[in-house]
């Protein structure tokens, strides 16, 4: 075994620290839970019999197929939504760009279960749209029936992943590439197929694989729509039912993890051996051209149509928050401010908690994400790929599994000074959120890293900069777009996460927003205040996202070109 060279000691110790963090807060808790999957339910002996049961059970086979179908279809629909938006904003001088970049991220800032409530009221079988259709045309459209509903809610909720990553990639393409291609006679489709599309590939694949994994693993949406023949709900239903904690729930968790890692690996393979980095980072972005009035009108029509659709959960929620009774009617019976008053009188702490938790978690995530991305792509440390895999694996851990794992692992560990079990200290919620959202930040950072040519670092080192200086003066600034994108996705999604927090909140004063909304939504009279809280969540998290992005932008303005919310990396 060769000894570590002097250059590697720094990265190696950082890698060790990181590994230890992931080991303690991800691997051990999850292992404690999924260990059950390998135990004989009767004797407790180690066995694989549960896995053979899984593959022999037709219910699980069907669930597996359904999960796969929903995930693939969601990627397709999310791409259909995101591609035009990304293309218009990066290709044309289009005044709607700011609108798209701002509104396009908003769907992420809403707990999926809240979105599903609003979508049911609008698009359900007896929702507003179908009631109108029934009255006008005498038929209804099953938007929300079974798997359709899940696909619809998921693609609307998660398409920003593709939008953010893809527009970032498009904006990072070196304009000279396009110019050279045009000088060589490439145009239109050929230019897109041979130059633009391949160069934007890392961004698209990063976004699409996130959508796929998230949908494959998502629990809240299918549960709220009462679709239970999918893998994640099956695992959840089996783990949380009273008295039944048969190993199958844990087996499904293992399958989810394995399958997610597999698809991740496939996306690695798809990109392997292709160098997407470009040396120059100055004339970033595609050539923009002006639109003639007709084209402009067409663009606006498409964009407005898409935005109307993706923002429909927000419209629904807004109406719900102002409406009195909304029952089997197109719109509520009357409108009131009462829900907001009621909500504000009791929920300010929920809001400050959320900002604190999500802010801390997202900060941890981008730091870890940047470090891992660097270790994986710029060093040759042994096992560096594993860091990436393990960190990404978090995406496939159902929140409830992580929650139970934390309770199991950290409840008997008392934190010194405050003398409280770690599992009931609010910091554990931050850790859980950071772990759950790390994959988002990581993907964004890795995509950013992939687009930086190593030649730039070599140049810096040739000029006498040491490793540290290179990282802080060259790599991080060039990645700042990706770091912003990672921070925003982690922050926004962490502030609306529910499944792990539901297990970990141990006192009411520690509860975050999503928990409060969930709680409100559990009673007939709480629907209005719950919706009002949801709207407040969207506004506040949106504002915080915008502010954090402005802040980071102002710090890095000299290194990046055109960093805006949706032009991440």
């Amino acid at each position: 075994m060769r000894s570590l060279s002097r250059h590697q000691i720094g990265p190696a110790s950082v890698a060790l620290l990181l590994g230890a963090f992931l080991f303690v807060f991800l691997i051990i808790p999850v292992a404690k839970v999924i260990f059950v999957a390998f135990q004989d339910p009767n004797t407790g002996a180690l066995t694989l019999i549960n896995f053979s049961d899984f593959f022999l059970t037709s219910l699980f086979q069907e669930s597996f197929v359904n999960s796969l179908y929903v995930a693939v279809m969601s990627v397709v629909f999310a791409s259909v939504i995101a591609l035009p938006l990304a293309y218009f904003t990066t290709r044309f001088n289009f005044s709607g760009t700011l609108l798209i970049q701002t509104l396009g991220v908003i769907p992420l800032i809403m707990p999926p279960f809240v979105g599903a409530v609003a979508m049911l009221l609008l698009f359900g079988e007896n929702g507003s749209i179908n009631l109108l259709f029934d009255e006008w045309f005498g038929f209804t459209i099953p938007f929300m029936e079974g798997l359709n509903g899940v696909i619809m809610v998921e693609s609307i909720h998660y398409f920003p992943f593709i939008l953010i990553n893809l527009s970032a990639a498009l904006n990072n393409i070196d304009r000279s590439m396009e110019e050279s291609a045009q000088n060589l006679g490439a145009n239109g489709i050929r230019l897109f197929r041979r130059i633009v599309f391949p160069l934007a590939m890392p961004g698209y694949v990063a976004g699409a694989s996130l959508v796929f994994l998230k949908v494959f693993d998502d629990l809240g949406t299918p549960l709220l729509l009462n679709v239970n023949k999918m893998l994640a709900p099956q695992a959840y239903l089996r783990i949380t039912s009273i008295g039944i904690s048969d190993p199958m729930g844990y087996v499904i968790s293992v399958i989810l993890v394995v399958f997610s890692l597999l698809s991740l690996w496939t996306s690695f393979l798809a990109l392997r051996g292709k160098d997407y980095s470009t040396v120059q980072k100055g004339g970033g972005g595609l050539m923009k051209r002006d639109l003639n009035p007709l084209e402009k009108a067409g663009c606006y029509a498409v964009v407005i149509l898409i935005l109307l659709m993706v923002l429909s959960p927000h419209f629904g929620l807004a109406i719900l928050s102002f409406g009195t009774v909304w029952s089997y009617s197109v719109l509520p019976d009357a409108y009131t401010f009462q829900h907001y008053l009621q909500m504000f009188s009791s929920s300010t702490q929920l809001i400050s908690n959320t900002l604190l938790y999500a802010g801390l978690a997202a900060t941890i995530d981008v730091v870890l994400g940047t470090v891992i991305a660097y270790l994986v792509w710029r060093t040759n440390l042994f096992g560096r790929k594993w860091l990436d895999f393990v960190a990404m694996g978090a995406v496939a851990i159902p929140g409830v599994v992580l929650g139970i794992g934390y309770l199991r692992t950290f409840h008997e560990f008392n934190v010194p000074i405050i003398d409280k079990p770690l599992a009931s200290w609010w910091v554990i919620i931050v850790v859980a959120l950071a772990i759950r959202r790390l994959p988002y930040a990581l993907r964004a950072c890795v995509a950013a890293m992939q687009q930086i040519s190593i030649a730039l670092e070599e140049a810096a080192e040739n000029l006498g900069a040491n490793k540290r200086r290179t990282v802080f003066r060259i790599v991080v600034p060039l990645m700042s777009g990706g770091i912003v994108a990672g921070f925003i996705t982690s922050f926004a999604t962490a502030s609306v996460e529910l499944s792990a927090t539901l297990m970990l909140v141990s006192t009411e004063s520690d509860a975050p927003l999503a928990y409060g909304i969930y709680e409100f939504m559990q009673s007939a009279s709480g629907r209005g205040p719950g919706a009002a809280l949801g709207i407040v969540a969207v506004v506040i998290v949106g504002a915080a996202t915008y502010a954090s992005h402005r802040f980071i932008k102002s710090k890095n303005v000299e290194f990046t070109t055109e960093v805006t919310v949706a032009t991440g990396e």
Partner: protein
Amino acid sequence: MKKLIINYTMALCLAVIPSLALAIEGKLTIVTSYPPDTTNTVKKVFEAKYPGIQVEMLKKKTTAGIKYLQETAANNTSDMFWASAPDAFEVLKGDNLLQKYEVKVGGIPEKVGAFPIHDPDGYYKGFAASGYGIMWNTRYMKAKKLPIPKRWADLAKPVYHGHVGMSAPSRSGTTHLTVETLLQGEGWENGWALWKAIAGNFKTVTERSFGVPDGVNSGQFGLGVVIDFFGLSSQASGFPVEFLYPPVTTLVPANIAIVKGAPNRAAAAAFIEFLLSVEGQEVLLDPKIRRLPVNPDTYAKAPADFPNPFKDKTLGAAVKFDLMLSKGRYNVINSMFDVMITYRLDELRAATRAIQKAEEKLQWSLIDGLASAPNDEAKKLIQEARALVDALPITESKAGEKGFNSIFKKKRKKATTKVSGRQAEVEQEWDSQVKANYAQAEKLAGQAAALF
């Protein structure tokens, strides 16, 4: 002299007890499944009475609450568990996680309906009664021209196809009781047949028990099988809904208990005493809560149409609920319901619809009275189809068997309990049977319909 001392001591006690009670201090952590409407209202009145106590309500779904208490038992920080389903408390009691407590306040009868109000073993206390019934959205019923149901069996009628919602017994303790009540009231085979006939009309099986009133309130489906306070409180919140107790229902107590090793036992005891006192019982009548108090005197202050189980003896009296029977097959019932109904809802619905259509055609043919009509043949096919849908994978005695139940138990109790088979294995066997039966039933019913 002796008498004097006793009198003196008693007087002293009487003088001291209230001041002691008021002097209780500290934080009281209650793990509860109740919505803020209930918890905040009760908390406000309680804290006004005991200014020294800060009540902390930790909201968890019943199932998650149990998990939470189990996982944190080694280093417990919760004082009380407060939820509806008695069987949730039975699970905690079985895990030795509850603390015995003797109630001091008087005026609470021994039983409500056929159910003892307090746990006979002394671990958990009933503070309110709940019954199960049917709620419906009046706008929905009017728009779809549906009649108002009166009894469970009505929900099985073809007119309600696709309009009914319910939660699954494995997901909601209260739903479990509804299912078990009907099984005990109608008998094992008839009870299951009725459930399947009703389930054939389901629009959906919701994941949470609150999903049912939520669906009815917003009009996603028209009728729901719910616990009374969901119906009553939805109505009080202004939704166009109504609620009815069918003749076969059980009134069961909603409960509260002190957690073993509670950090603040004195405050926990004070909370129980408060909840059962006249003052605490009256809080339950609040329109946002709407639970049936267990102190009969409280009903004097209730609104005119408020159901009173202590006066209306028909309420909840039709079935003598056997708690031990229920406990003995708890997980098997959950699993059977999920395998036969929850996870095969599409297939069950399709088979039910086919049978309903065939029966309708047969009905018309009988009315027409043509001698040449293939009525008998169709009737036979329909009967066969029904029998296939109704077929159960196991008998009642098997469902109650101890060894068989332990396959479904979460804990390996004793090494001596013989267990053969695994839950997943058993369920897969049932599932393939059920799936084939439903498919065959749909086919037979289709053949019957094709005869006309």
